[in-house]
């Protein structure tokens, strides 16, 4: 990882100027070590979340209720893989390698969003995830399209365009269920009951307890606080639940005319921290599945590398007559 020990004051001044002018920081710009570390941690956690997030939904692909729903769910899960890849690529511009990122996830030294440590128990959960979990993610990601690190912001623009489909397909599932039989309505309500609070917790600890918020705001990594984003999400989602005829599982939820916002109850932060610490219902299963997939894929990666190497040798043996495939240096993986 690139580190700069004693920042020349010119570089620091230039960095501050760029931030003040709302310009982006780009990979080859000087940046404080702490900014780089924070950025790597945040982008990596985001990338890992997209990748692990494939599991709870992938769980329902074989049991989707129609071919239409199945095709949609496959497209969505494939998008999550793509989002993970955009984000890993963005993280790598900061000088960390893909292997390191994988290792950090596989050994539990980097986290992913705790929301994916809850199980998807019924088909209605696929609707609730799209509507609530992707809805919460979009609220955060729309802000991040304006974040100060260029590659991260650009990845977010791409991701936000695609997430809109995710939320709408989830809401459509909820609409269909709530217009269905009593049993289907009950399924939809049950899914909302289980996903509501974890979705609110996705925005992270309250501002008063958030260790990173202040510095992240100063660096324009975050432009709104956890509590502001959470409020935005609640205000947006309550009327949607009303439209569905579903009851949000919060007795304290009430419109506050004076604030122009909904008041809502206290999140169970003990539960949140339990899940963050690895004691959620699916933590071990998620990582074990990820590591198994990684290990099982090792031979494919090795075979692909061996094939590429052989093609290269063959092309070189032909005197490099094919100009397109000769003269590449496969071992230089260092960017710029």
């Amino acid at each position, binding site marked *: 990882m690139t580190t700069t020990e004693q920042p020349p004051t010119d570089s620091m001044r230039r960095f501050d100027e760029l931030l003040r002018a709302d310009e982006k920081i780009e990979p080859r710009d000087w940046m404080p070590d702490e900014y780089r570390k924070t950025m790597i941690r945040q982008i990596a956690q985001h990338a890992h979340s997209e990748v692990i997030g494939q599991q709870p939904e992938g769980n329902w692909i074989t049991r989707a209720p129609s071919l239409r729903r199945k095709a949609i769910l496959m497209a969505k899960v494939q998008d999550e893989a793509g989002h993970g890849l955009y984000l890993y690529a963005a993280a790598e511009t900061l000088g960390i390698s*893909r292997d390191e990122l994988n290792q950090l996830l596989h050994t539990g030294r980097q986290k992913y969003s705790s929301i994916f440590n809850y199980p998807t128990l019924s088909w209605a959960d696929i609707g609730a995830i799209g509507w609530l979990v992707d809805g919460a993610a979009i609220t955060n990601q729309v802000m991040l399209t304006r974040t100060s690190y260029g590659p991260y912001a650009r990845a977010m623009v791409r991701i936000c365009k*695609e997430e809109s489909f995710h939320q709408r397909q989830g809401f459509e599932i909820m609409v269909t269920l709530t217009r269905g039989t009593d049993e289907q309505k009950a399924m939809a309500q049950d899914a909302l009951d289980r996903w509501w609070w974890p979705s609110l917790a996705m925005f992270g600890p309250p501002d008063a307890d958030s260790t990173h918020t202040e510095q992240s705001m100063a660096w324009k990594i975050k432009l709104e606080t956890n509590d502001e984003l959470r409020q935005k999400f609640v205000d947006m989602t309550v009327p949607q639940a009303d439209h569905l005829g579903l009851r949000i599982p919060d007795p304290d939820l009430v419109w506050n005319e004076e604030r122009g916002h909904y008041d809502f109850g206290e999140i169970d932060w003990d539960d949140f921290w339990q899940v963050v610490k690895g004691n959620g219902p699916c933590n071990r299963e998620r990582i074990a599945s990820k590591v198994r997939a990684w290990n099982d894929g090792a031979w494919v*990666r*090795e075979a692909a590398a061996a094939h*590429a190497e052989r093609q290269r040798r063959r092309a070189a043996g032909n005197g490099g007559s094919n100009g397109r495939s000769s003269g*590449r240096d496969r071992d230089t993986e260092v960017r710029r």
Partner: protein
Amino acid sequence: MSYDVPPIEGETDPEVVGTTGGHPLWEVFVRASRGLNHVHCGSLHAPDAETAARNARDVYTRRSEGVSVWVVPSAAIHASDPDDRESWFDSDKPYRHPTFYEIPDEVGHM
């Protein structure tokens, strides 16, 4: 609420093996439609150019974002130094811009 999920009998944390296999990094450029330039849109790892192009299609053009894809080994890109920007990208020649010149109003649009 706390979840206490006991390990299944014989369940152990799997050992992590292998690496990305040294697949190099490629920069991906996509032409959105005929008549436009290929524009950089991201990067990916792949063992060779052919695989890189195919993966670029899957990763960066799932919604008809393009009609053509280029992949270039990242190591092949030589970039200018951000510290040289002032000497490289000077902005002190306003006479190179049309707005530098005053044209009498009665001449109209030029």
